């Protein structure tokens, strides 16, 4: 063990039920087409695959186009439609750094075939907004015995 190394580099022991195996996975949401000036999109969904439940553990975002840097707000919901915040959260309050994403604690389990929900709003009156949000976590596969 190297005390200078982050836990991920030292290695993290497998967790969870022995009947399951967790595999690193990321679901991605892109605002395509880009959000127009002051546009609001409600009830957006990120559909989940049917092969495994998804355990959401962290979120980060980026704006990949320097011509579309409109400031945005976003609110997430779980697979039952329960919001995870009382209002839309300003982009600066969620990490835009992949090396230090905003943790989702405790983790949220989304059933296979479900969806991650979100509302997103471009609050910028002058610039469109192209946003990519990465939902980092694991796919949880059942081990057939």
């Amino acid at each position, binding site marked *: *063990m*190297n*005390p*200078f*190394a*982050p*836990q*991920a*580099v*030292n*290695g*993290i*022991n*497998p967790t969870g039920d022995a009947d399951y195996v*967790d*595999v*690193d*996975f*990321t*679901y*991605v949401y*892109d605002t395509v087409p880009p959000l127009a000036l002051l546009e609001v999109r409600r009830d957006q969904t*990120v559909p989940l*695959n049917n092969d495994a439940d998804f355990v959401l*553990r962290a979120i980060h975002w*980026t*704006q*990949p*186009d*320097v*011509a579309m840097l409109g400031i945005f707000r976003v609110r997430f919901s779980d697979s039952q439609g329960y919001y995870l915040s009382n209002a839309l959260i300003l982009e600066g309050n969620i990490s*835009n*750094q*992949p*090396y*230090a994403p905003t943790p989702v604690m405790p983790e949220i389990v989304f059933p296979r075939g479900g969806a991650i929900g979100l509302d997103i709003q471009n609050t910028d009156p002058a610039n469109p907004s192209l946003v*990519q949000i*990465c939902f980092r976590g*694991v796919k949880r596969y059942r081990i057939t015995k």
Partner: protein
Amino acid sequence: MIRRADLDYRTPAGYVDDFFAYVYDADNLPDLGNYRDVPVTIEADSDFVLRKIDGMGTVLAAAPGTVRAGQFLLKDANGGRVSESERYAQIGPGIDTTAIVPERTYPRQGAIRFDLLNVQKQLYFTPGPPFLTVPAAQFIFTGVKRYAGSEKQSTYKYRLLPYSYTIRFFIDWDVYAYIAGVPAGRSPAQQFYIPVNDLDFELWGLVDEGAPIGAGPPASHAKLQLYDSARRQRFSNPVLVDYFAYNSPLSVGNAIAPPILYPVGSQIKFDLYSMMFTTEPAFPLEREWTFFGAQRVPIGNGRG
């Protein structure tokens, strides 16, 4: 309460892990292209356990002023996608270091495959005529090589004592070798040795400092190949120093895990490949490197 020992990683029984990084040099990828299923072949001696990826911004469009960032998509050992769509690189000074949690195993002789969209390599260049460039574009896949076998136990009881080996040197050779003023290929590496002459030493990482001290590392001024005490390479290709140095401003989490053990009497050997031009104002560049870690100090009856 969670105890420290509960967090310590337990390598599966019957295996031994060695720190290793597969380094993909994108020097020969033409810019502005899209590339699918780019392979990095896993060597035949062991499986590879991937824990961290770096360097996205050096290969993909990401520099300030870039209109649209490039995108990256990692594949698993079977070629399956590990995200639903391609992830964008960060534009500007963002750090693209990405942890892979849980770790992902690639079997020996398999390949780490990935897609690249909108390649735009990072280039270093001369500040004036003759306007030469050299690509500095790499993906660094950090993790461990997992060998069948059992951990060699120390033959003596010890405690760890923080310890460092420091070396000061100049990078005083050009990235290119020239014939009649025209680049005729990359300059060869220069080799450095640090004798481990006191006690067994665990290497945990490298701090790269320069003159003036405190200036920190400039954008990777060199590539490094590190060897263990058995002279085995710990990178598949020489790595840009900024993606290995602990104090790098461009990547995070750079440390050697598990540590590399250098027994007393062995040497920390490394090769340096210059990434500088003699026409740069900073040339020749003085560096001071600190290889930090811990000595194994015998306790009790000492050795044996």
